[in-house]
């Protein structure tokens, strides 16, 4: 049990004893009420999830993982926007069209190796930095909005707040005060900013295929537009 859990358990036990003692033996209502209040606080602390890794460390790990991808994209001179695709193994991949962008992958396909060939179309296959973080235990039953909020605001503190809205096949994500610092131009162009990459990964995990259409920074806000494609 973590320190917060010990504090919560200790406070709960102490408050329970205080409540029973002050009600049955002292017959003191204000003290009983204080005991009930502390019991509520103790249980609330027990229900608080632990934070074993500080958010700035999660952010640094995510930012660091972009550097390898940037080097690969630079070496292969890739500039097309990637498609976030959920593979047969359940993991989210980014398929980047090699040469001319001929649209999202269609039909049945198997992701294998660095280059995936789907119906005569070649795609560079990359595992995005957010591929594993979207599967953390806390998100097992969360919807898109809650999961995005949890990863971007709570877990990594990449932004102050997140709002989402859906317009047809497009999902618009409004990020307030983004703090991610991905300096690599090519990474941002191909996989999007870290915030956009996380949103696209979550959408791909849910719907099959997603793509970042546009990203606009204005007045301390980043507005990301994503397009969702149905798998197959």
């Amino acid at each position: 049990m973590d320190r917060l859990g010990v504090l919560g358990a200790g406070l709960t036990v102490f408050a329970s004893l205080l409540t029973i003692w002050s009600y049955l033996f002292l017959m003191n209502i204000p003290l009983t009420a204080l005991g009930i209040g502390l019991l509520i606080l103790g249980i609330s602390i027990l229900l608080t999830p632990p934070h074993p890794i500080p958010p700035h460390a999660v952010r640094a790990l995510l930012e660091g993982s972009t550097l390898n991808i940037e080097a690969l994209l630079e070496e292969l001179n890739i500039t097309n926007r990637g498609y976030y695709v959920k593979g047969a193994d359940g993991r989210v991949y980014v398929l980047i069209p090699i040469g001319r962008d001929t649209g999202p992958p269609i039909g049945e396909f198997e992701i294998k190796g660095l280059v995936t060939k789907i119906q005569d179309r070649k795609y560079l296959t990359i595992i995005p930095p957010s591929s594993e973080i979207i599967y953390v235990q806390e998100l097992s039953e969360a919807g898109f909005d809650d999961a995005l909020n949890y990863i971007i605001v709570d877990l990594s503190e990449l932004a102050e707040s997140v709002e989402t809205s859906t317009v047809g096949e497009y999902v618009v994500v409004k990020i307030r005060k983004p703090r991610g610092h991905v300096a690599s131009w090519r990474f941002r162009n191909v996989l999007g900013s870290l915030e956009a990459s996380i949103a696209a990964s979550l959408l791909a995990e849910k719907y099959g295929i997603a793509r970042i259409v546009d990203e606009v920074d204005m007045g301390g806000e980043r507005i990301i537009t994503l397009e969702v494609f149905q798998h197959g």
Partner: protein
Amino acid sequence: MDKNILFNIVLGFMIVSTAVILSGLGEMRLDVYISMYTLEYFVAKAVLRPRRRFLDILGLALLLIFSIIVCFRIWEILRA
């Protein structure tokens, strides 16, 4: 500061303040204290939106107790 920790600090401050103020006013009804705690819990939760390890059983329990208190009050009014 982590908003989950901030929520607990704010809740603790509100609970202790309520207990001190109401006892200072000579309040002897336990249901008044519990109703205030319930109200404060939900206000703090709505403002700070803390995360929970699993289902918010504390919120459900407080809501249930608050509903029982309200039912008793309505019954007392109807009986009078």
